[in-house]
């Protein structure tokens, strides 16, 4: 999908942004060895924009979004220089005010839709609850709206599904219900955390198409968390690549696929068959994302990076502006995909 | 999973199962304190005749209902006070520990051993014998253990020996069910199949191959069974169906103390407190054992 919406990140002021996150840290565990699951993440989403967040499991992409939603619990600590939604500061907001936004203006769907629905309540009741909570909509009007929502997410025979229980629905159906629940209050931002990972391949495409259609109809901001770059390539306008709790690159869509600046992005691209065609095939990265006990001192990718230099082991690179985005690499790749140290 | 019963030689990298178990158990402070308390109680029970200041049945007619040493009107002659017949409560409690622990040990052993055997039989012959055994256990489980014990004692007549028999019978089903359930799981494991293919006989399979791997939950159950045996024995004693006076069984002591609620709180308080502490200690130990022996059963905490 060609992007019609170009965005100049550098000039974008905080107020015009739908979601504006600056220097977000999420820490788990206390004492001598706290674990920073998310470290210094900046993220901005414009109204109506589709942003993909990509990374391996454990890269902190879900945690970042849960933190934005205010769903990180007590042992975890969330700090940020700025965390605002539609110009309102989520950090200083009272819990009650925040709850009025969460679920209504920002909503989220999750990877495993079947376990994300409460098994004890009928589908219709779970949808009604959202409407009652945020729009004070009850009775016949609420039921009519629920039906409308179920039809909007293309659930066949919606009326009879109202009294169905989650265990009676397939994975794809459950995800449609989750989506209906998420768009119930016409949110300005929808966060989809690996919405298709748990589904059959054929269903995946349908759900993705549904999400994109809904995004276009309602002009929502959409954050798509995934480890699948191919999906992002098709729908997103901008991509943020995360690695071990940090943003390592972010860039508009055609650029990130044509001219990745960070070695990690390049490696991810090479794992997609279509994109490695023609280019010299890069071996997949060996090793795994560093965890709590084996965080490298310098660049977090240094133990796995094919272009690693001595400085990478000792110093931590900052996120620096590239042509139309930014990358966290001392030797950002050039247009030919070669590291800048030659 | 290895059980602590098969203690292997410790190697530098892998601590023996026994050591590993002990480390897990000792980390649990409540369980360790409970173990210390139980060891102390067992020693006190063992040496009661030597450490108790008086005979448990000797009556000091000049000192009826003396309050404990620290209370008003009390004296160090009777540290925990004396009862309505002038008997030293501390001495009675120490001797009572012998009775209660003895009841616990005997009734646990007398229900665990047949229970385990029946459970193994039910697991190895699940079609006819197994069904028969389990139906019988269902019938026994239909009555709560204390009521069944009351019924049995009603038939056999009150007394210490019959109490033990009754308690052994009522806790039988828990061992049978537990052993059967874990043995059934083990029977599907490859090592059992391998052992069977190697030509191991049924008896060998039952007791040498399967049983050691079912021991963890059985040991936990035995600890918890110990505590409920003490509790139920005291209840029977209290109802006048258990150990008979003048035996200083804790529950029997309480039965006699009922008339002194208004005048002598210590006669009521001391035996009950002893029961609570003992049962609490055993339950804490049971929880600790379960967590240390079988992480799968670990409760969330």
């Amino acid at each position, binding site marked *: 999908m060609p992007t019609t919406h170009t965005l100049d990140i550098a000039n974008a002021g905080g107020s015009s942004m739908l979601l504006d996150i600056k220097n977000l840290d999420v820490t788990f565990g206390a004492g001598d060895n706290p674990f920073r699951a998310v470290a210094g993440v900046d993220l901005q989403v414009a109204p109506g924009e589709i942003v993909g967040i990509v990374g391996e499991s454990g890269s902190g992409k879900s945690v970042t979004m849960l933190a934005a939603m205010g*769903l990180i619990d007590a042992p975890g600590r969330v700090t940020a220089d700025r965390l605002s939604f539609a110009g309102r500061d989520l950090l200083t907001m009272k819990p009650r005010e925040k709850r009025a936004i969460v679920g209504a203006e920002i909503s989220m769907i999750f990877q495993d839709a079947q376990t994300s629905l409460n098994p004890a309540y009928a589908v219709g009741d779970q949808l009604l609850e959202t409407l009652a909570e945020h729009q004070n909509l009850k009775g016949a009007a609420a039921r009519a709206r629920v039906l409308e929502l179920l039809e909007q997410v293309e659930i066949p025979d919606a009326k009879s599904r109202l009294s169905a*229980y989650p265990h009676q629905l397939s994975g794809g159906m459950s995800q449609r219900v989750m989506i209906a629940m998420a768009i119930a209050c016409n949110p300005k931002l929808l966060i989809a955390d690996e919405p298709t990972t748990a589904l059959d391949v054929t269903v995946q495409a349908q759900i993705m198409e549904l999400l994109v259609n809904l995004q276009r109809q309602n002009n929502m901001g959409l954050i798509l968390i995934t480890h699948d770059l191919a999906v992002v390539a098709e729908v997103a306008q901008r991509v943020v690549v995360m690695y071990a709790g940090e943003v390592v690159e972010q860039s508009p869509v055609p650029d990130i696929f044509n001219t990745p600046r960070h070695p990690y992005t390049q490696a991810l691209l090479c794992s997609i068959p279509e994109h490695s065609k023609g280019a010299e095939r890069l071996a997949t990265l060996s090793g795994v994302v560093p965890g709590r006990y084996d965080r490298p001192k310098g660049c977090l990718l240094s133990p796995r990076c094919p272009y690693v230099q001595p400085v990478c082991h000792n110093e931590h690179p900052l996120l620096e502006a590239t042509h139309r985005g930014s990358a966290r690499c001392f030797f950002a790749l050039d247009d030919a995909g070669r590291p800048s140290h030659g | 999973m290895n059980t602590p019963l098969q203690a292997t030689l410790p190697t530098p990298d892998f601590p023996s199962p026994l050591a590993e178990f002990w480390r897990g158990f000792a980390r649990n402070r409540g369980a360790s304190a409970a173990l210390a308390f139980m060891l102390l109680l067992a020693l006190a029970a063992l040496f009661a005749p030597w450490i108790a200041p008086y005979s448990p049945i000797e009556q000091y007619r000049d000192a009826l209902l003396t309050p404990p040493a620290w209370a008003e009107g009390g004296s160090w002659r009777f540290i925990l006070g004396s009862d309505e017949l002038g008997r030293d409560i501390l001495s009675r409690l120490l001797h009572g520990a012998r009775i209660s622990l003895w009841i616990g040990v005997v009734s646990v052993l007398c229900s665990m051993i047949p229970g385990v055997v029946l459970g193994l039989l039910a697991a190895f012959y699940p079609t006819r014998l197994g069904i028969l055994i389990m139906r019988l256990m269902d019938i026994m489980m239909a009555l709560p253990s204390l009521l069944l014990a009351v019924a049995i004692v009603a038939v056999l007549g009150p007394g210490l020996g019959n109490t033990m028999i009754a308690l052994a019978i009522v806790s039988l089903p828990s061992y049978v069910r537990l052993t059967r359930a874990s043995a059934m799981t083990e029977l599907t494991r490859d090592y059992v199949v391998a052992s069977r293919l190697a030509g191991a006989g049924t008896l060998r399979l039952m007791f040498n191959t399967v049983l050691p791997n079912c021991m963890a939950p059985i040991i936990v159950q035995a600890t918890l069974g110990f505590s409920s045996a003490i509790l139920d024995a*005291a209840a029977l004693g209290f109802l006048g169906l258990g150990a008979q006076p003048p035996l200083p069984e804790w529950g029997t002591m309480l039965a006699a103390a009922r008339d002194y609620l208004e005048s002598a709180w210590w006669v009521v308080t001391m035996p*009950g407190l002893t029961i609570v502490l003992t049962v609490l200690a055993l339950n804490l130990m049971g929880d600790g054992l379960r967590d240390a022996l079988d992480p799968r059963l670990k409760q969330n905490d």
Partner: protein
Amino acid sequence: MIQFLLKRLGVVIPTFLGITVLAFALIHVIPGDPVLVMLGERNIDPTYYREAMHRLGLDLPLWQQYLHYLGNLLQGDLGTSIKTNIPVLQEFLALFPATLELSLAAMGFALVFGLAAGIVAAVKRGTVVDHTVMGAALTGYSMPIFWWGLILIMVVSVHLGLTPVSGRIDIEYDIAPITGLMLIDTLISGEPGAFVSALEHLILPAIVLGTIPLAVIARMTRSAMLEVLREDYIRTARAKGLSRSRVILKHALRNALMPVVTVIGLQVGTMLAGAVLTETIFSWPGIGKWLIDAIGARDYPVVQGGILLIASMIILVNLLVDLLYGVINPRIRHAR
């Protein structure tokens, strides 16, 4: 659902028959001549003995005696009390409401405080509150309730003078037993003093009887809640912007209740056993005290009938709990 019910009945009926065999055997296992045991007499005239033997059917072969016994049972004939000469079933029915009232009050107490304690402990997991609540629960679980009853009487009734020591109501009130439940009967009678008196008499026994179920429910609720709070749908509920209390009480508790309901069913047996002790301590005129008194008086028809009736009730309650479980768990209710 029907299938589920039939399956449960398939287990319940053999168990019930087993209990009847057990109760039947009781009379024959007791040392001594069954005729003398049933009549509760020592030396009787040989003609009368033979006549009684025939009347009680004890001259028949054992299996015929059992069938006879079973036939009588099905007609509601559980024998006659030696002491009072009143049919056992009639005595049971007269006394059962007292036990029912006590058990309901105790279960209500245990449920309210047990659920609350379990939820609070789970939500405040790992804090001082959690440790205190769970320590108290384990202590309650380890409590010999007959002693706990004595201590409460000593402190609350004797020293503080807050509640009466024994019985169901002050003797000054004469309440017609309409439902048999004193609280309701006193309300019907229209005497406010009588209701207060009945309530005062009920409080301590209910607390004593409810203590162990409370402890068990609290422990079970806590661990079930901890399990449920980790589930994905709790995250969904929070992502909906629901308040914390709504997430816990509506979304978590409903699912945590399923294992708790099973435990409550098992506690009914424990409660009836506990009633024996509680009623003895508080001189509460229910079936527990009746059974113990009958054992003391060697009134074997009552012992036999009482045990059979109590066991049947426990079986029945457990069956009801299974059905209730089916109602709150949609997976069973809508089983295909």
